[in-house]
């Protein structure tokens, strides 16, 4: 007889795969996030007058602000599609641990964010002749920051879609809680762009890891309470 309940990892993979496959076919979300990112950078370009001298100090900040904004767009959308046609109820009925749903959604959200970053970063480098962002350390910080942002963002977006104000509420809930991860990422990646020695960026990097661990664990534990009906 076949096993009645699928394994945890299989369930996580199935949910992430479903999201990625749907996105790969429609490309609605990614294209919106990308165009939005471009627009934010365009606005920053004129708002901050990104000449060579200014760029030195604000590159990390501009990039992280862009990713944070684009990220909320993705988070909102990815939970809204689950809610709209009762998909979430279907997922909740599946005989798997609820945290598998969390990890599945978090992985697909992270994938969207990383794809956007993978396109925006080279573009930014090309536009501003900024090759210092192609360092392993910079990309590592980008990954760590995105993990922290997405882990708490996935949890909060699952909450905000169930409220009356929906999309409006997500950034208001998410940004104050995500302040540590954004600031630590800006500090660490800014240090890398400025060419500081590795020891100097160790402090924000450590805090980034601490945040990631704490919030992944917490979100994993309390996701149950957010989706129960």
């Amino acid at each position, binding site marked *: 007889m076949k096993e009645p309940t699928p394994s945890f990892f299989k369930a996580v993979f199935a949910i992430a795969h479903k999201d990625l496959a749907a996105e790969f076919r429609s490309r609605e979300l990614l294209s919106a996030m990308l165009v939005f990112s471009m627009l934010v950078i365009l606005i920053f370009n004129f708002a901050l007058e990104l000449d060579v001298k200014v760029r030195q100090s604000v590159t990390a900040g501009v990039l992280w602000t862009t990713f944070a904004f684009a990220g909320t767009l993705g988070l909102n959308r990815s939970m809204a599609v689950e809610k709209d046609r009762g998909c979430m109820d279907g997922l909740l009925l599946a005989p798997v641990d609820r945290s598998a749903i969390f990890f599945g959604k978090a992985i697909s959200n992270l994938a969207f964010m990383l794809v956007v970053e993978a396109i925006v970063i080279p573009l930014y480098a090309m536009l501003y002749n900024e090759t210092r962002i192609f360092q392993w350390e910079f990309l590592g910080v980008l990954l760590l920051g995105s993990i922290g942002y997405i882990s*708490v963002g996935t949890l909060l977006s699952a909450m905000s879609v169930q409220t009356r104000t929906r999309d409006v*509420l997500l950034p208001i809930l998410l940004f104050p809680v*995500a302040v540590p991860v954004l600031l630590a990422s800006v500090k660490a990646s800014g240090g890398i762009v400025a060419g500081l020695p590795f020891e100097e960026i160790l402090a924000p990097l450590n805090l980034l890891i601490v945040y990631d661990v704490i919030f992944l664990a917490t979100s994993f534990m309390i996701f149950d309470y957010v989706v129960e009906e």
Partner: protein
Amino acid sequence: MQSKPMALTILDVLSIIGIGVATYFALVYAPTEAVMGNVQRVFYFHVGTAWVGLVGFVVAAVSGIVYLVTKDMRWDRFEVAAVEVSTMFFFITIVLGSIWARPAWNTWWTWDPRLTTAAVTELIYIAYFMLRAGIEEPEKRARFGAVYALLGGLSAPITFMVIRLFRTIHPVVVGTASAEAQGGFDMSGDMLTSMFVSLGAFTILFVSLMWHRIRLGGLEEKVEELKLKVSM
């Protein structure tokens, strides 16, 4: 609804007397600070309100956890009361700090770790109320509120640690760095006494206000039930 308990009435009276005494200690009893002068007297209430503000947020996060475990609505009322009273006290702290900062630092505001953390924390709890306002079902409202209070309580200390990497000029009250920071000062015995009087007075006031708010929460629930009954 039972009538107002005796203990609460006593607490009310005590908190009125307490705030009066604390005002006396802050304005008359405490010596004038040598460098900053009389404006430093705002410090006693600044620390008092900040203390109860922080205690309230910890209480809220803990009662959020207890609610999620027990699913008892009384803990939700407890949590809302703590957040609501603390948000107000914290706002007063920020305003008083601003009044002090203007002469001491020559600016109303600076992006120092404590100030920034205070601002972010305040924003978290404003978001908390917006979240609650967007949900009709009481049970779901309580659940989401508890989750968010917990997340806020977790992220605030990390925010503080992260911003400390940027810069600081805020004096540390407990610890050694006190006099070195700009606007810091060494406290004399009388100043310390005044500070503790103010801490005590605000703690009593806080408990009393929270109790009132919890009772109010109970009444709110009753009204909601009655409304439901009438509409059926």
